[in-house]
């Protein structure tokens, strides 16, 4: 599927990846769910569902709804907890799958503790600190929206692990560049952006919010131009490698993120409608490179033609 002559490998935060296409946290389960569809080693890697110290149940239904070219979710970080992940999920993955573990907590100490426990686990190549979950009242929104809180979080998680540390930023901020600089200053190895955009929808017939929680996160193709803007802004603000996320469903979408400065990309919501989406993005990216005479996909990074800016 990959033309011989194209070198798809990239480096992200010190990790060598087979190719720049990963699957995004919360859209790829613990990887195992995609085994019926393809060999997970075909991807650059995947980010597992965000883990907390203890298992979490999440919000009552309805948790999802469809909107124009996108969806809303308010899962509220239901997950099996870090111990069950290490014991039951990780060992079942085939060797050679690059797993990025995503970390979440309601207190900074919890984040740090989860980071500690994940460090050294076989197959886990990096950690992604989810500072940006848009629908947990006591959690993500504050961490990722306040530069001081974010700094504390990055410092604590940085100290808790020797693994490469990615920080996943919230899009619900006035200046993503400021948040990017905070992460760089506190020793993060890379950034992932964006998480879902805070949103709301209502059923005019029942007059109720479509989600039990009211607020939810908007994801899917609708947010791509917002995500691309933020990656472009972050890439100009910091030197850190960036994993671009938001609405990616085709190889052309992925190319856009690389051109504005991302080193790799994550496919999210598209996995739901097409379980082969990430694989198809990988194949299409290789075809794009072959068609455009790009020998190394890494050369696309920041290769936007936008003189003077």
């Amino acid at each position, binding site marked *: 599927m990959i033309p011989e002559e194209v070198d798809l490998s990239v480096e992200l935060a010190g990790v060598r990846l087979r190719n720049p296409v990963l699957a995004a946290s919360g859209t790829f389960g613990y990887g195992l769910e995609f085994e*019926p569809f393809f060999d997970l080693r075909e991807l650059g890697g995947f980010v597992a569902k965000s883990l907390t110290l203890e298992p979490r149940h*999440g919000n009552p239904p309805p948790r999802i709804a469809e909107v124009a070219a996108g969806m809303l979710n308010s*899962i509220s970080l239901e997950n099996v907890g870090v111990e069950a992940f290490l014991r039951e999920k990780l060992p079942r993955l085939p060797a050679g799958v690059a797993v990025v573990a995503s970390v979440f907590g309601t207190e900074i100490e919890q984040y740090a503790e989860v980071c500690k426990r994940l460090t050294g686990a076989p197959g886990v190549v990096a950690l992604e600190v989810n500072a940006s979950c848009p629908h947990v009242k006591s959690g993500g929104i504050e961490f990722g929206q306040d530069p001081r809180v974010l700094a504390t979080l990055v410092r604590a998680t940085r100290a808790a692990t020797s693994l490469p540390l990615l920080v996943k930023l919230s899009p619900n901020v006035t200046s993503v560049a400021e948040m990017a600089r905070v992460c760089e200053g506190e020793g993060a190895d890379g950034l992932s952006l964006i998480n879902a955009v805070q949103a709301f929808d209502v059923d005019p017939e029942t007059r109720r919010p479509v989600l039990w929680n009211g607020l939810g996160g908007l994801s899917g193709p609708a947010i791509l131009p917002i995500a691309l803007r933020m990656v472009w802004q972050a890439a100009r603000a910091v030197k850190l490698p960036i994993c671009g996320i938001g609405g990616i469903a085709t190889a052309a979408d992925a190319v856009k993120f690389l051109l504005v400065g991302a080193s790799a990309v994550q496919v999210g919501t598209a996995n739901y*409608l097409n*379980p082969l989406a990430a694989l198809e993005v990988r194949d299409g990216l290789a075809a794009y490179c072959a068609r455009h005479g790009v020998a190394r996909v890494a050369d696309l990074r920041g290769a936007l033609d936008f003189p003077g800016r």
Partner: protein
Amino acid sequence: MSAPATVRVDAAVLENESEGGPNRRLRLDVGAAWPDSAPGQFVMLSPGALPAAVRWDPLLPRPMAVFRREGAALDVLYKVTGRGTALLAAAQPGERVRTVGPLGCGFPEPAPGARIALVGGGTGIASVFDLAVRARARGPVTALLGARRAEELMAVAAFRALGVDLRLATDDGSAGQRGLVTELLAQVLSEGVDAVYACGPTPMMQRAAALAAAAARPCFLSLENRMACGFGVCLGCAVPRSAPGYALVCRDGPVFEAASLRVDGLP
């Protein structure tokens, strides 16, 4: 039971015809390699035929029960209720519908000789048909089908052709008994039934579960939740368990023993 294989095919539309009222039957060519499915399993269908160029609205696939499988042909019975099903209704023979499946865990096999009652309300009728097909060889099957009006009743002829004990109910009395299909269930339970299998709107399933519990009969519910993925990764289809926490309709269900859920918390 080891999970059967799951595949994605862009299946050609073979037929897409009105079944009367708002209901239609879609026949897809899923190919000979399509895995066998158990009664109660489902597929995720793209909301309408794949367009001539990418269009992202509506975005998410729609869950539909496998109504019938004949070689490479897979039938789905569906009701036009909103955007996705309206666009599916416009799919022409030869166009393709993205199909992922079979998904979920179906109905448990009835014990040999057990007298079972199937309760189908609205679109839920499609979910219990394959169970009727397979169960009638094992023991007596009573099928109770309900809808608002006669024209909304799905698959009546197909059930009739099976030769099962068939009873109908409609809100307006335009077919069968006037009233709710669960009133039929109450009757049938009093006549003697060993297990209940139900699919339909939430209030119907809550009532069916209550009736079965009162009669001390096991009750299996097939839930019709909103879904994004259908295979356990979005966590969007959660329903409350009777134990703390949630079950996923697409992965742990769609069929659940009623007692395992907090049925008053169903969406």
